[in-house]
């Protein structure tokens, strides 16, 4: 085939041994780089930062060319966490898909799930039939998720600067949110709670009270970050004018989310292309005009306050009602209940379908093993995740499985801006710049 790697020079050449052909998988160009580095007489060296490095947010490999303390060139090596989620989705039913996508960007599971489900619902043409309660709970979970994602970003970003108190605070508050997740979905991450057509199940008793309690506590805790960091001269000195990317750079590199808003453009899909009823909520889109890491920090802090506002509005609006579409051909799981061994099919439902209704049993069996069919076509749906535009391109060929699902993960796109932010700066500032991008490798590599 004529479709081999066009630049053969950058790949390692295979070597024959008694055991068979041996390939050097990574660092194939290392000898070349080391030789050319030895030739130059100055202090220019190439540093491989990662893929195992505490401040690279997972398995990100940064390849830095350094002259003294200055970074002259910076490149990313990614793919260490590639798990083939997009390919795997093509071998499961549409409903099973949410179990996979929730694991992509593992800090924003509800955004992955909701984006995917909105895409499937658009293909099915049932967007209007999603019950209000399901949409409100989706918004509620997404905004809680925005808080927990931003908290991790601020916490780990602070830790990388040596500000361990911020780290402790961030994880302390995130724990409160994870407790809410656990109460609602049974899990702290990898929930698969949002399903095509609605939700896996309704909120359990006590969830609303616990969220109200949390909002109260969080309203008290949020100013602590302000007091600790916002005016802190060391924090400001490390963050200001670091990781600079202006509006033209953002647009060219496709950067969205807090990076784009730190360049002054109030672009937020919740406002411009509302989904899940976001147009009915009252909130503001914070921006900064500094184009730097400090601006992004302030934006994340303000977005957390706005998320709390949205959560309160969600709680006020919750009315009893269904959380799954009425169409029983789509609504899976049929009935769930909490048993002694965890969440599963409700015993009453099993008793009914096994004992009294053969048709119900057939329907249940077909829906679970075969799944539902989705009319052929394609759709693109995007949601505003804490990191930016999370887009899903879903293609169906009319079958019971997705034909192709592609995720435009904001971390993947935003990470491209790393070189533009870091080149010409100090080595220590690379950490700050990468932290302000807030990449999560599960999302980058999928």
């Amino acid at each position, binding site marked *: 085939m004529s479709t081999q790697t066009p630049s053969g020079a950058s790949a390692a050449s*295979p070597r024959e041994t008694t055991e068979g052909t041996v390939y050097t998988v990574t660092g194939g160009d290392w000898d070349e780089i080391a030789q050319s580095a030895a030739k130059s007489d100055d202090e220019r060296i190439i540093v491989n930062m990662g893929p195992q490095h505490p401040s690279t947010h997972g398995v990100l490999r940064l390849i830095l060319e350094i002259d003294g303390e200055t970074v002259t060139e910076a490149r990313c090596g990614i*793919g260490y966490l590639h798990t083939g989620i997009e390919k795997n989705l093509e071998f499961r039913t549409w409903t099973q898909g949410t179990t996979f996508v929730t694991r992509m960007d593992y800090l924003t599971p509800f955004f992955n799930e909701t984006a995917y489900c909105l895409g499937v619902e658009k293909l099915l043409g049932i967007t209007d039939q999603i019950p209000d309660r399901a949409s409100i709970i989706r918004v509620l979970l997404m905004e809680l998720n925005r808080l927990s994602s931003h908290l991790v970003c601020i916490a780990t970003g602070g830790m990388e600067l040596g500000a361990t108190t911020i780290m402790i605070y961030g994880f302390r508050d995130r724990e409160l949110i994870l407790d809410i997740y656990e109460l609602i979905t049974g899990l702290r991450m990898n929930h698969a709670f949002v399903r095509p057509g609605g939700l896996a199940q309704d909120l359990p008793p006590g969830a609303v009270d616990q969220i109200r309690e949390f909002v109260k506590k969080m309203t008290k805790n949020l100013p602590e970050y302000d007091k600790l960091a916002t005016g802190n001269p060391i924090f400001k000195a490390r963050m200001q004018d670091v990781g600079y990317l202006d509006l033209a750079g953002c647009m060219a590199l496709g950067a969205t989310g807090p990076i784009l808003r730190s360049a002054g453009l109030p672009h937020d899909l919740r406002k411009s292309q509302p989904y899940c009823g976001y147009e009915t909520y009252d909130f503001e889109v914070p921006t900064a005009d500094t184009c730097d890491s400090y601006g992004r920090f302030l934006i994340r802090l303000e977005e957390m306050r706005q998320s709390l506002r949205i959560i309160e509005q969600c709680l006020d609006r919750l009315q009893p009602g269904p959380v799954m579409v009425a169409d029983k051909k789509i609504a899976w799981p049929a009935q769930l209940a909490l048993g002694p061994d965890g969440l599963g099919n409700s015993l009453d439902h099993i008793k009914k379908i096994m004992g009294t209704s053969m048709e119900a049993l057939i329907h249940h069996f077909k829906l679970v093993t075969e799944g539902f069919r989705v009319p052929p076509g394609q759709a693109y749906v995007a949601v505003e995740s804490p990191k930016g535009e999370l887009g899903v391109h879903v293609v169906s060929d009319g079958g019971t499985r997705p034909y192709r699902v592609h995720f435009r993960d904001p971390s993947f796109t935003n990470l491209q801006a790393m070189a533009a932010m870091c080149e010409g700066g100090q080595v220590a500032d690379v950490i700050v710049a990468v932290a302000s991008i807030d990449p999560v490798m599960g999302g980058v590599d999928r």
Partner: protein
Amino acid sequence: MSDANGNEVNPEKDLSASNLPGQRGDKGEEIRVQRGMFGANNGGDTSGYGGLVRSIRLPGAATRPYGGWFDEVADELEGALEEQGLVPENVIDKTVVDRDEITFHVEREYLLPVARTLRDDPALRFELCTGVSGVHLPHDKGRELHAVYHLRSITHNRLIRLEVSAPDADPHVPSLVTVYPTNDWHEREAYDFFGLIFDGHPALTRIMMPDDWQGFPQRKDYPLGGIPVEYKGAQIPAPDQRRSYS
């Protein structure tokens, strides 16, 4: 079995989707003819579903008016292309409107001028490209590989889709990195997984898979892999070996 003219008819062989009665959704573009169901294609089928023949059709070309702002964008694009001396009918293969989304199927040799026009024309201003998504349609002869771009206009608050196709034998598509630098990694990803070669890309290398990986994993003929797993005494086959209902 024979038909009116006395010719032998073998339902397993002679059925093309066009001479079948009662096809659902005759409109649209056929990408594949599906035979059988439940993955039962190697004997042992007593259900009769093995003889099922279905035509898989994607939504076909739309005619004017497209509705809403779609016409405005299409008019502006056609006008701008004419100004550059291009014939819109040659550039845009067809326009599909489906599920409130508009898709321009563009001939691949004109992708670059179309993208540049969409980005720069003040009435269009699609300044943000959300990357490229590859789609492999192995039965769509001559158009097996598709590259799908979603362009967002923040100025006008619009979203459109561009689609180009390339045959398996010549998987070349022009690179959009000069117009949308954000497509750098996205095109590397599409190359890595689908083998689409983006001509003019500054460094088209694999991005997710190891550099010396053979094959393109997200093509439909590339196996998923996996091993059978024992669960509660039963052997559960690997995901791509399980019964499929499509």
